[in-house]
Every structure is written in C-alpha cells, then in structure tokens.
C-alpha cells in the first residue's frame, strides 16, 4: 500500500513539470499555426512529396535571398514580410486513397477551434476533389490561413501564419497561376458551363 502511494506521489511529481512543459510548448505556438503531423510514413509511400516548414526566422532568411528583379519573387517577398510561418505538406500517390483519412481528420479538428472560420468548402463528386479553406480571424485581422485539399491521389495541407492581409492575398492572385478571385471588387465571376459539382463558398 505504501509503495503504491509512493508511486502515485512520484507520478504526480513527474507529471506536474511535464504538463507545465506541454502547456508552455502549446502556448509558444503562434495563433493561426496548426500542429501538422510529420507524416514521415506518408512521404515513404508517396511518389512525390513536398514538405515545407518555414518559421518566422527561416522566412526572414529565405526572403533575403529572393530576387527582387523577378516579379514572382518580388511579390512573394512582399507577401512574406507580414507572415510568421508557412507550412506545407503535399503528397502524391500512385494509387487511390493511399493516405490515412485520420491525418486529415486530426487537422480538421484543430480547425474547429474558436477563431477559425471556413471560407470555402468545395466538394466535387465528379473529380472527387475536396478543398476547404479556413481563416483564423483575431482582433479583426486574419492571423492564419489553412487549406486542406484531398484528391484520390493527392493530399495537401497548407498553413500560412501571420498577419494575412486580404489585399496582399489579392496581390497573390494572378501570380503563380492563381487567377483573380475578385475578393474586394465584388464582381461576380463568370459562370462555368459544367454544373456537375457542388461547392459552398462561405465568405465571412
């Protein structure tokens, strides 16, 4: 009995600092940043994988080496100046649904936390493509952007952390192959002729 009590006390003694450490590490994660799993197993299975982890320090370092003469890189430099992190996990497979859905669900659960709002939920039955765009708004400012895209042979998560200005996002449009989403102009985009997919734009 005494041994059990001693063991319990020891466990409590050790658990306290561990819990405190876990709390501290969670508190250190900036608002808008998701805890993306390493997904090392997926990278082994994938035919192609892109894993980008750029925290604020690395972003600053990387942006110093962007060529201001190149229009794409100049635009990127401007966008990156207000960001504190970019995290990308993208995996392409040779077979359908080779990735575990539990990973996606785990990330989606984080996006159900207060502050996150879903901007777009697009489901295409024809192409079996799902795209979800979320944004974390804090104090009237966008602090984080998350995109989860899943296709039969591709799975991608993008997490952009920092003061995301929609105007800057607008600047991103038209670059890197992104068309103008007409966020601010309010113009309605021309309708496409294929009405076979469902999409739910959820503008806040």
């Amino acid at each position, binding site marked *: 009995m005494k041994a059990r009590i001693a063991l319990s006390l020891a466990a409590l003694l050790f658990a306290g600092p561990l819990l405190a450490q876990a709390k501290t590490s969670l508190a250190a994660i900036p608002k808008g940043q998701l805890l993306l799993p390493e997904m090392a197993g997926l990278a082994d299975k994938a035919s192609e994988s*892109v894993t*980008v982890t*750029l925290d604020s320090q*690395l*972003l600053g*370092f*990387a*942006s*110093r*080496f*962007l060529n201001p003469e190149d229009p*794409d*890189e100049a635009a*990127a430099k401007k*966008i*990156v100046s207000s960001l504190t992190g*970019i*995290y*990308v996990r*993208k995996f392409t497979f040779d077979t359908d649904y080779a990735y575990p859905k539990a990973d996606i669900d785990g990330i989606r659960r984080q996006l159900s936390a207060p502050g996150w709002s879903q901007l*777009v939920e*697009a*489901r*295409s039955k024809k192409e079996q*493509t799902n*795209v979800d*765009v979320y944004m974390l708004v804090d104090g009237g400012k966008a602090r984080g952007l998350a*995109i989860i*895209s899943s296709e039969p042979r591709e799975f*991608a998560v*993008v997490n*952009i952390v920092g003061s995301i200005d929609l105007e800057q996002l607008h600047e*991103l*449009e038209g*670059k*890197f*192959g*992104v*068309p103008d*989403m007409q966020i601010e102009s309010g113009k309605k*985009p*021309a*309708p*496409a002729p*294929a*009405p*076979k*997919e*469902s*999409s739910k*734009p959820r503008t806040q």
Partner: protein
Amino acid sequence: MNEVEELLRRALRRVEPPEGFAERLVRALPQVTPANVMALRAARKATPVSAWRRFSAPAALAASLLVAVFTGQHLATLKAEREEQAGLAASRELMQALRVTSQKLDLAYEAVQRPAPAPTAEEENRS
C-alpha cells in the same frame, strides 16, 4: 679536560693576517684567462650568426599570422557560401510553398466559380 679545551681554544683562535697579505695574494694570482673560457670566446667569434638564425623567430611569427589570416578568410568564405546555399534552398522552398498554396487556392476558386448543380426533377417535384 680543561687543558684540552685550552689547547683547542689556542689553536683555533682568530689570527689577524699580516699586513699587505691580501694585496700580495691578488698579485700572486695568475693574470691569464682560463683556457676553456678563451676557447669558447674564440669559437663564438669564429662562427658568424647566420641571417636565418637571426630572423627565424620573427619569420615564424609572421608566417603564423599569415596562416591565421588566410585560414580565417577561407573559413569566412566557406561560411558565406554555405549560408548563401542554405538561403537559396530556403527561398526555393518558400516559392514552392507559395506555388502549392496558389494551386490549392486555384482549386477553391474553380469550385467557387462553378454554379451549384441544377436540382433534379425529383427535387423540383418535392418543392
């Protein structure tokens, strides 16, 4: 016992040297420098100190300084090169991340652009 002590005391008593003893002694000493000292002096004069021997220590010091300076410069260049390579790799990663982001935003945009599917005949009848 007292006699023995008395004898010893007499024998060991302090005796002052006769006058002029010290001067006579110094005069009596040989005036010639010992042979080994002479030989050493002669040997030193015979072998001239070479320039290499004279400047070897400063030269070694200068060489060490030069080596240190060049090594430092080389290391600094290597560090700068490594930093540049890492920076270029990071910038490539950044551009790749932005490209992936734009691709996915593209997908979302396309999905938003598409009009909602037309209701089926069954759905129309229900309404």
